[in-house]
């Protein structure tokens, strides 16, 4: 519990942020030990990935539709 | 209080940066338009390397002329429709006459529909590159030379190139008119 969140845990936390669901225990860990900057940077990165993801989704949908 | 000071400085800096970002959106938008062809803005201008044309398909290019408000010139394309193979260099012209009793300066603004075709329409020479000044009653034939890129997506079989003529006489300095007068 007192460990600093690992990169993987940070990623998971930010991901669950996008998802909008988080458990009390993980949140407590994040807020007790994490540095906000890491979360913000990861968040921005994930937002970028999200945009790329939606763009890929659009391409895929268009290729399915044959345009 | 120094903790406040540092935080406040950062936040103020952030808002100043965002103000700058607001203006940065203007060039960003142009880049964005170029990449996605949003809004049919034409960015491809100037000479292109001529290569073999793609005779397997023919694109119907419709040319239209639009007047913006307060623009009384007679303005229209010489050919309403041109059929062109991708890669083929086509030449046409627009005719303009200033029927009024005063000197006027106009700027033609090109636009392409569908917007995604904009990036595949290369204008080698276009009257829209410069402002057009016409004396009272004067007419002019304005040439247009264009090539459609061979990479034009297959599903686009017809496209429209419109020119909107804006009256910019009040905006331009008398320099343009003076120069025009000198040439005459």
């Amino acid at each position, binding site marked *: 519990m007192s460990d600093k969140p690992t990169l993987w845990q940070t990623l998971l936390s930010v991901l669950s942020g996008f998802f909008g669901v988080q458990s009390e225990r993980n949140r407590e860990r994040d807020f007790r030990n994490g540095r906000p900057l890491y979360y913000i940077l990861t968040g921005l990165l994930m937002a970028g990935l999200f945009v790329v993801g939606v763009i890929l989704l659009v391409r895929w949908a268009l290729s399915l*539709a044959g345009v | 209080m120094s903790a406040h000071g540092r935080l406040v400085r950062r936040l103020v800096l952030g808002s100043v940066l965002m103000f700058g970002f607001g203006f940065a959106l203007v060039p960003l938008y142009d880049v964005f338009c170029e990449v996605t062809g949003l809004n049919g803005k034409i960015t491809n201008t100037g000479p292109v390397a001529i290569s073999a044309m793609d005779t397997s398909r023919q694109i*119907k290019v419709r040319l*239209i002329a639009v007047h913006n408000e307060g623009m009384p010139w007679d303005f229209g394309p010489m050919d309403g429709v041109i059929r062109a193979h991708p890669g083929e260099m086509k030449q046409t012209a627009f005719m303009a006459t200033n029927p009024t009793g005063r000197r006027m300066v106009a700027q033609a603004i090109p636009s392409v529909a569908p917007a995604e075709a904009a990036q595949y329409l290369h204008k080698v020479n276009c009257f829209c590159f410069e402002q057009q000044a016409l004396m009272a009653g*004067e007419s002019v034939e304005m040439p247009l030379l264009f090539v459609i890129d061979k990479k034009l997506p297959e599903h686009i079989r017809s496209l429209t190139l419109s020119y909107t003529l804006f009256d910019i006489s009040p905006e331009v300095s008398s320099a343009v008119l003076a120069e025009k007068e000198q040439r005459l």
Partner: protein
Amino acid sequence: MGWKIIKTIGSGLGLTVYTATASAAWEVNLTPGVTDVSRSVFDLHMTIFWICVAIALVVFGVMFWSIFHHRKSRGAKAHHFHENTMVEVIWTIIPIIILVAMAVPATATLVQMYDTSEAELDVQITGYQWKWRYDYLDHELNFFSNLSTPRDQISNEADKQEHYLLEVDRHLVLPVETKIRFLLTSNDVIHSWWVPALAVKKDAIPGFINEAWTVINEPGIYRGQCAELCGKDHGFMPVVIEAVSKDDFNQWLADARVAEQAEAAAAERVWTLDELMQQGEQVYLRACAACHLPNGAGVPGAFPALKGSAVALGDVAAHIDIVLNGKSGTAMQAFRDQLSATELAAVITYERNAWGNSLGEAVSPAQIARLLTPSTGEAEQ
């Protein structure tokens, strides 16, 4: 009531007087329209609507059940749970699945709308403050379409007719079962051309060209309006489409050309002052009164008065120039393309002789006709 009263807006089955429109006035849903696209849109709309209703029933059901049963006055004791990641994950996944289910048909309909295959008829639509101009690009025919509802109906001095505010002087006549491409642009501000029965709404933007497609399945008259705030009379620039069979369309094209020639011929004959004044008043009310007001008084600070003005009482050539060519940097449009030679002559004559302006001189249509067709290239030599 119910979803069955859906009716194409303004379809021929309308009722004649306002009091009799009760059933039409309670219209509650989108029109299914008369094109394949508009039907897909309607189906999509209904699907999403019912999905939303279903979700609402579940969520509000649980909520009202709790409100009813878990109230203190019924002796309910609060249970102290405040987290359950499992439940939360489930109720996040379910909406995502529902959203995907919505996105699939939505994408299909959108792709259908963007069918860029070649059209058989190109119509250029130009928005003006506050009217539409239609150009049949392959047929060298163009005209303006103005609101034709009389002003006394708008000002409540006469009974409002069936198609109040949804009627124009010239319909946009289109053939059915033909792929039509609309090319939209604007002369001044942004307008938006909308016909619900076609499910076509596209912005007309000055300097830019936009396109939209349709294939109308059924003949009929379909009405719409401008959908983007475009200034004072935004609410008074309707769209009326008359869809006819292909044969009727060709006949109409031919008739329209004959009418145009007749109009041009009329300009050459001699008109009396009274004739011009009479027609001038009609033209003025249609084309000028929106800004300069029916009594010529204008709107201070926005639109100048014509009554007693220097232009209307001054040099006739300057007056003609401003009406034909507009005035740069103001809202005064160039009317040379919008009105015929006769109409222009009539309205200028009217402005110089109405509301106490009394110059007594007439501007002849023939004089204007010569100005409208300048011999090109003349000044260059």
